[in-house]
């Protein structure tokens, strides 16, 4: 049998919250609302017209453009952590006070300012390792090449 070759991509960026974690990616091009946008008890996106409506980020590496909406953003991600429904790690593009504070209180490794757009490189289902302390994201593509 032919040997399966998995594609591995390395991205470099800036630490937002330190630590190291890995998991399956959940990627969205829509910004995320905290209060009024997620159910913090299950990590499910509830916003009307959101492309991830009905899907949960629990234990996923959440890759998204940034935060919008209410100032309850951090309190809702804080609640998700206490409810055991937080993402494993976060990767995002646009820095705001909402997403910075939300990432800090989620206590999961978080990164931004990557050298390539993570929304272009990472797809839902890819295996992603976030080493925020060293500023490295390792992406193992889900689709294997023969």
């Amino acid at each position, binding site marked *: 049998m032919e040997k399966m070759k998995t594609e591995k991509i390395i991205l470099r960026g800036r630490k937002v919250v330190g630590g190291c974690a890995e998991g399956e990616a959940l990627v969205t091009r829509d910004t995320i609302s905290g209060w009024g946008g997620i159910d913090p008890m299950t990590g499910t996106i509830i916003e009307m017209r959101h492309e991830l409506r009905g899907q949960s980020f629990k234990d996923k590496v959440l890759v998204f453009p940034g935060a919008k909406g209410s*100032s309850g953003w951090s309190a809702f991600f804080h609640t998700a952590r206490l409810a055991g429904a937080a993402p494993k790690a976060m990767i995002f593009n646009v820095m705001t*006070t*909402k997403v910075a504070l939300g990432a800090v209180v989620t206590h999961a490794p978080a990164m931004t300012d990557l050298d390539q757009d993570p929304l272009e490189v990472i797809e839902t289902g890819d295996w992603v390792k976030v080493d925020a302390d060293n500023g490295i994201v390792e992406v193992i593509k889900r689709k294997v090449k023969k």
Partner: protein
Amino acid sequence: MKLTDEEKAMLEGEHGPAVQKAMDLLVRYGEALGAERLVETNNVSTTFASTSPIIRKFIAERGGGPDVFDAVFCEFNLDSQEVVKIPPIKAYGCQLIQYVDAENWEIHGMDREISELNAMNEAYSGSIGLHMLSTCTPYQVGNIPVKGEHCAWMESSAVVYINSVLGARTNCEGRESTGAALLTRRIPYWGYHLDENRLGTDLIEVETDLVDMRDWGIFGYYVGEMVGERVPVISGIKRVPDHNMLKHFGAAASSSGGVELYHIPGITAEANTVEEAFGHRKPKNTFRFGPEEMKQAYEWLNYSAKDPHVDFIMLGCPHASLEQLRDICRLLEGKKVHSNTHLWIFTPRALKQVADRSGYTKIITEAGGHLMSDTCPAIARVLPPGTKVVATDSAKQAHYLPAIMGVQTWFGSLEQCINAAVTGRWSA
């Protein structure tokens, strides 16, 4: 991040353990942002409420006890898992909108237990020095920041109001950062605290007459959808809006998008001309707002609504002013709310007292409606029993209620809403 000697002393615990936890959070948060330093603030709008399900569970797991509110403050307002005693707060601070209306919790169908917890919570908040305004509009009832004042405020509709209309300087803070600001009088010097970030990014050319609050709500909803988190500069306004119109405009723009600052040259605090609003920048985008855009945004706002039989009319998001209460009463006086509908109106408790003295509460009550305070349906997650269809004059409430409560929501003018309250039917 660079800290002053005083800030270093706070971080090292010389001002006590609670201040140390607060400074530790501000350093983690400031570094996450990439802020260079902190800035002094003596004006904080925050929330310390313990009645949400997760916090009630947190309290139950600890078996209550005399230090239970200290424990809640540490975890939920400072992100500290270690419980330390919370001293009297250093900065002036006020409570924003909360989950429980201290007087109308029974009408909201809340348990006595939750109302008692809320009462203990309020007493604790008062004891550490928090002003119990309990509204999303502190700027209507005594907390009116001055132009240039560095603030640490939560509540997106209030943030956009004080930044834009008053020219104060705040980012959209969260529960934990404002908790830390109360104890340290500090917040990261980042974002809208800096001159450069207050310049306009997008130009909105208005080519229609904006007459009433409905128009301003629709306009705000459109602007938020177009500019997201950027800073719109609005030109072509023919008549000066009043504070109610700007309150609704900002609340709408911060719901469909994340607008935290806008400029209407000659009207809002910081710029007299479009050129001044953009400074050395050139507009990234230019949008037109005419009758077609007005129609489009009106349709977005009524996206969820189909059934003309209205169960519930919600007014006062953001919390209603005295002018709004008078307008409501003029339309409602001598009429009766339909037997199949409920009418709830929300105003800051401080204004409720004025409404009582001015006869407004009596008119509303005699018509079969309720004048309430402290909370709103989206925050408290309460609706009258069996509600499937809502009507409101608030773009913000029309944006959030369908997602949070799973109800259809009609958006329209105050006249349409009162008409629906009296007839039980929505007419477009």
